[in-house]
């Protein structure tokens, strides 16, 4: 490598790190501020004392534990539902060329564009007719049939050789047996990829949960944080930082530990 090349490449490397620094700085600042008194945080007093008061305060001002539980319940309702329903549908599309399948698939794809976010008004009306307002079920239900998941699984199932199905059929597997014993295990990477994408999406979802949840018993973390941080209550930087960190911590920690899998999953889900 010539010295000029070396120079440009180290310059580029520096650029890469500076860009990265800009990208983590906001979060790092929030992290730093959460452990300092708000006066110090605002004036950026680096050597000011550390404190856990902000977390204590935030924790006592809002039931974050309950919010976290609600988010967890929400995600654990949506994800298995999505996987189950989409698996059945994708299997139907791939191995049962039922009449009208093409039209049906087109109707599924419509949801890629018209996501439930846009139909908040009517979906609210529907759910209130069903008496599911202010329930975790109601919060999750519009998302349970996921066109994206059906689409992903259909692609995956299509790539599974017909011979494997023949072999299983010959061994006496029933239609559903083939699905559970052959298709599902072979699509595991897709299931994982979709799961990570879905969990991060619904963990972070805000607008629909805001509309549909009325009480502490159903309010997920994002909505709790939204109400907590709504500046109408008067902002205290440090307490809000603490509350923000409490809210994002579970998913963020999971991401930091399994970051490679997360990035890979988003990639895999994106390619198809």
């Amino acid at each position, binding site marked *: 490598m010539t010295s000029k090349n070396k120079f440009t490449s180290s310059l580029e490397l520096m650029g890469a790190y500076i860009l990265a620094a800009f990208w983590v700085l906001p979060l790092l600042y929030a992290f730093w501020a959460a452990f300092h008194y708000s006066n110090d945080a605002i004036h*950026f007093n680096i050597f000011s004392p550390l404190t856990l008061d902000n977390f204590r305060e935030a924790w006592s001002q809002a039931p974050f534990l309950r919010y976290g539980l609600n988010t967890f319940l929400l995600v654990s309702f949506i994800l298995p539902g999505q996987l189950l329903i989409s698996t059945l549908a994708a299997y139907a599309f791939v191995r049962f060329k039922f009449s009208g399948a093409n039209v049906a698939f087109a109707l*599924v794809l419509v*949801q890629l564009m018209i996501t439930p976010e*846009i*139909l908040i008004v009517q979906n609210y009306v*529907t759910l209130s007719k069903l008496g599911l307002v202010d329930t975790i079920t109601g919060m999750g239900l519009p998302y349970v049939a996921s066109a994206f998941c059906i689409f992903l699984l259909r692609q995956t199932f299509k790539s599974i050789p017909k011979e494997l199905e023949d072999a299983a059929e010959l061994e006496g597997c029933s239609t559903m047996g083939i699905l559970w014993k052959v298709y599902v295990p072979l699509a595991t990477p897709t299931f994982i990829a979709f799961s990570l994408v879905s969990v991060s999406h619904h963990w972070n979802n*805000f607008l629909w949960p805001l509309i549909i949840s009325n009480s502490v018993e159903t309010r997920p973390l994002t909505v709790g944080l939204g109400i907590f941080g709504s500046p109408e209550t008067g902002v205290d930087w440090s307490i809000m930082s603490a509350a923000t960190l409490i809210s994002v911590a579970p998913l963020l920690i999971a991401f930091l530990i399994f970051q490679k899998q997360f990035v890979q999953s*988003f990639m895999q889900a*994106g*390619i198809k």
Partner: protein
Amino acid sequence: MKDSVRNFQGWLLFAPAAILLLAFTHYPTITTFLNSLYTNKSVIRPRRFSGIEGYESMLSDPIFWKVFANNMWLALGTIPTSIGLAIIMALIVNKAIPGRGLLRMAYFTPTMLPMIAVANIWLFFYAPEIGLIDQAASIFGFESTNWLGSPSTVLPSIMVMTVWKEAGFFMVFYLAGLQTISPELEEASKLEGSSRWNYFWRVQYPLLLPTTLFVLINAFLNSFKLVDHLFVLTKGGPDNASNLILYYIYETAFAFLDISYASALTIFLLVLLALTALAQFLFIEKRVHYR
């Protein structure tokens, strides 16, 4: 006989998904359209058929035009920048350089944060006088700027935040795109003495074009769905300078309780998104395909 059994089984397997999709996508789409043709029911006035009146009043509603323009500006202001940054990030992270894992994590982390938390964090930066940006600016003797409080800066401020949030997400698609490019191409182009810059423009960039179009369309669709930050940052103000269609729909439906008008707005948004998706299917998909 056997075929009809398979037919029935197929429909049976598809039924749960079909019912939910019908209930939460197709049925509400249709009722939204119907509602947009009727007036609201209230104690004083009963519901009546009003035809396209709702749409007429939409077209003469200056706030509607304002929020629509805002949405378009937001898309225009964030998508090209995000895509440019995403390509740069992907190129960086795709190479074997020291700290690659850390860099990738740094770029991607904002994607994992809920928009509402992002807004909370960035509120610190934008607050006039006491915010981080203003404090930094005051060191260099700049005057304090009310980033979120003046119509000329509020949208750009939100754009910067959005780019920060989204670039890492788009990076992932480019990473996936780059990995489908055979490394032999780079070796071949190196042998021919082409510079890296040349290699990017002549080889990588054209091969990434399908990715770019995919990202472009999805980013555009996304930009209409992302309104969470408004709840924390501006509530659409000042004077609707940062208001967006979906947030306006929310306000109209849930704060003003005007379902009829909210339905008309929703239908407008749906048509807009449908046209975009259609453009993707009919036009772009055919033009850019190398395989």
